[in-house]
């Protein structure tokens, strides 16, 4: 059945990583209509976009294909602007967790990326008359040195969005206080196919296991007691952590 414009809907930026994927599946329990958005900013790890598409397609059966859309928005010009980030500049090596811990802002930070992406999501939400934007920021983002993944950032951008005179769309970040362990558990509860999520900042066939993103993901799986189903370049001795397959 086709949904009318009055059906409450939500815009979700889905990177294809663990957090936004879990959020997407969580949203499918609360919203009948979802507008997923992914961004191609010429990131090294653009394979995450394939994972995003895969996850959206999985939900078509649940919600009906007419009730879940997926726009991959091309902002590849951003690579030329964000030259200080290892994610967009091939001459800069991705920061490994071992070297980057405690760094207030690692080279993995992409200048003002989230402000730009969320602004686009807000514009999309306003045009589609969506209720909210669900942002996948998690507790670890602040810890990993991303000011634009902090609760203060979300509060401030919401203040700006509230200046809108007709449609006040709120950015909600349901995972903002959740640890990676809690996110893995929430994903397991929602039967998320973690095999088709991509977190690593490197664009290789296997995840490096050492970048800040891999390191946080791995800790989430180890602490939740599950084996991460994706393959890593480095061997992880899951048995020694008493982890079980999903």
């Amino acid at each position, binding site marked *: 059945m086709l949904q009318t414009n009055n059906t409450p809907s939500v815009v979700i930026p889905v990177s294809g990583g663990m957090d936004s994927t879990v959020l997407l599946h969580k949203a499918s329990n609360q919203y009948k209509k979802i507008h997923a958005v992914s961004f191609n900013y010429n990131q090294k790890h653009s394979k995450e976009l394939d994972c995003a598409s895969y996850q959206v397609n999985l939900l078509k059966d649940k919600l009906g294909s007419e009730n879940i859309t997926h726009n991959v928005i091309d902002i590849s010009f951003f690579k030329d602007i964000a030259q200080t980030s290892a994610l967009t500049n091939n001459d800069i090596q991705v920061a490994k967790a071992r070297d980057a811990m*405690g760094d207030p802002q690692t080279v993995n930070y992409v200048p003002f990326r989230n402000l730009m992406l969320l602004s686009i999501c807000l514009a999309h939400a306003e045009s589609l008359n969506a209720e909210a934007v669900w942002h996948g920021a998690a507790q670890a983002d602040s810890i990993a040195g991303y000011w634009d993944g902090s609760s203060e950032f979300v509060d401030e951008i919401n203040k700006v969005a509230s200046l809108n005179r007709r449609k006040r769309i709120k950015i909600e970040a349901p995972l903002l206080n959740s640890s990676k362990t809690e996110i893995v558990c929430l994903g397991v509860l929602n039967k998320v196919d973690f095999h088709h999520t991509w977190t690593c900042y490197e664009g290789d066939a296997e995840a490096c296991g050492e970048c800040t993103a891999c390191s946080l993901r791995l800790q989430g799986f180890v602490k939740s007691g599950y084996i991460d189903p994706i393959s890593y370049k480095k061997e992880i001795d899951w048995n020694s952590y008493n982890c079980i397959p999903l």
Partner: protein
Amino acid sequence: MCGIFGATDKERFKTLYGLNRERGDFSFGCLLLGKNKDIQLCEAQPGVVEVEEFFNNDYSYLLGHTQAPTSSARKFDRSTSHPFIDGDWVVAHNGVLSNFEILKAKYLPEHCNPVDSSIIPVLLNLLQDQSELETIKNVMEAIEGTYSLWMFNSVSKNIYVARCGSTLYGNDLTCEFSSYPDIGLKELHDNTIYLVTSEGLTDVSGFEGNSPFFII
């Protein structure tokens, strides 16, 4: 995030301060231990150590901290600057405590300082055990996050440093430590408590750290 550092020599302290400003230049804090057992404590805005009169004593050890604000508190205020004091403990910390709100709710519902680090010396008093070391271990295992810190007990005059995930380098011979690397400083072991004396940095205990990062 911030930087912590310590040295027995005033000039090295200044050098380490300069390096750690890379990790935060919003405020500077220090605890200077005089050779006559007197203590000079300071929370200030950057630049204070460039004033020669600032160092007015012979010191046995100098402990410092550079702060980068990770909260919305952007206005300098001594109450939100390192080091933090509670009872006999003085603490400076680098990193983020991811379970700050949980700890507050569990142990200190009326704790009103918005800086997560401020809870550490309070916990050192609250989770007191049979020995200073056991107490520190209790606190290190209660807090979650990626951090390094120095702790000073004003009764025993002991200085401790520990790290969980965050960077911390040290030199056993010169008794120096620093969040920012420098020539001669080697990475200190993770999840380890060191006693800092004029004899060197001594590994005195391990603890079960709760870092959000998994390191291969």
